[in-house]
């Protein structure tokens, strides 16, 4: 018996459509979220994350409808986030079908939100998303889609997030995001080694070897990617076969 390392496709949406960009900029259309969700569910994805990267107030009903459509396709867990600023925002996302909620900028601005979510839904449903950017010997927490500094050390913020009630960390390397040059192993290993909760590594995935490295040297519990899956550049099934052959415990659908 061994807990499988998870492969998690991420759907960045503008509310209704999946979009993709490089370094949080230059968005283009990448498909219908429900269609992609059905495909990943069948291919052996272990979970799915849906993010509303536009996260504007007037698009909110559209995003909730997207969550409903995606959840209807899935027999695996669904995490949703983007623009969740209040407990009521989180409730509406959970009612629409999300199993977990992810918070980022709002958690930095009001850390108590993490505790409120954890009390209401349980720590296992609260995913603290941290966008981290290298600064000298440390990593700086970035907010508002990676644009601004939160003036927080990523390691310290991850630890505080766990104390406040986060049950998982979604860790994105701002430096690697969209570059397809591999996950940030040093960042992920540093955070994973300093918190008691699972860590999802994000940003920079392209090759199967990148996943092997992030699960071994990077000590990640799960790895997230978007465009390589959307573009069919990497099949989830073949990726898992590659990992299994190299001794990484992964789950194959029966």
């Amino acid at each position, binding site marked *: 018996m061994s807990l499988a390392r*998870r492969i998690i496709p991420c759907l960045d949406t503008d509310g209704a459509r999946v979009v993709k960009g490089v370094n949080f900029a230059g968005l283009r259309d990448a498909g219908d979220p429900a269609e992609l969700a059905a495909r990943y569910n069948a291919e052996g994805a272990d979970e799915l994350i849906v993010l509303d990267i536009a996260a504007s107030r007037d698009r909110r009903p559209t995003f909730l409808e997207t969550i409903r459509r995606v959840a209807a396709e899935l027999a695996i867990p669904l995490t949703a986030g983007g623009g969740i600023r209040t407990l009521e925002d989180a409730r509406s996302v959970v009612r629409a079908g999300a199993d977990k909620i992810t918070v980022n900028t709002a958690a930095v601005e009001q850390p108590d939100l993490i505790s409120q979510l954890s009390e209401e839904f349980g720590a296992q449903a609260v995913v603290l998303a941290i966008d981290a950017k290298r600064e000298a010997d440390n990593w700086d927490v970035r907010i508002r889609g990676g644009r601004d500094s939160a003036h927080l050390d990523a390691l310290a913020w991850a630890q505080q997030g766990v104390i406040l009630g986060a049950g998982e960390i979604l860790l994105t390397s701002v430096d690697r995001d969209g570059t397809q040059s591999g996950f940030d192993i040093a960042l992920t290993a540093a955070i994973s080694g300093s918190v008691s909760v699972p860590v999802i590594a994000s940003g920079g995935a392209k090759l199967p070897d990148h996943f092997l490295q992030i699960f071994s040297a990077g000590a990640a519990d799960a790895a997230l990617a978007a465009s390589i899956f959307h573009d069919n550049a990497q099949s989830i099934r073949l990726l898992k076969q590659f990992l299994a052959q190299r001794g990484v415990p992964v789950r194959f659908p029966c």
Partner: protein
Amino acid sequence: MNVTLIDHGAGNVASVERALARIGVASERASTPESIASAGILLLPGVGHFAALIRALDEKALRQPLLETIGRGVPFLGICLGLQVLFESSDEAPDLAGLGLMPGRVCALPPTVKLPHMGWNTLRALGPSRLLREIPANSYFYFAHSFAAPAAPELTAATCEHGAEFAAIIERGNIFATQFHPEKSGDAGALLLRNFVSLAA
């Protein structure tokens, strides 16, 4: 026959509804003592805190009808927290009494491993299991919890291990429960739900 989903307001009932619908099983939500008393098949989903579920059951006066209906032999499946509340108590809320249908106390998993135990894990069958019928032995199921029930051999059909060995599937008479989420466990979970529903048919 319809599956009666106990809707206590503290669980993800909708995702269980969707999972049952995918295997062609109709369900209805129940949140009153009468609707539980008249159930033919009972399912108790649960996520979150032990105290929230126990308090919700007590505030809605569902504890007694639930115990009586299970006592009459109506097939029952508890999921995740719905397994834990079957026991006498939990370290998560030491002052609250569980349903007491299973002896013992739910304990925290040891801090030597990452918690919550989150993700897909395999099981170790302790004997024949009605829920695992025709499910391949190495199948993965989705877990998301930090507390777990003791793996007492006389109650436990299968265990899982994360820091310690704990009860993953309980089967005793008409009482069934899983620590993992079959409704989130892909095809293996769908097979398990089908097995449960067919027991009651």
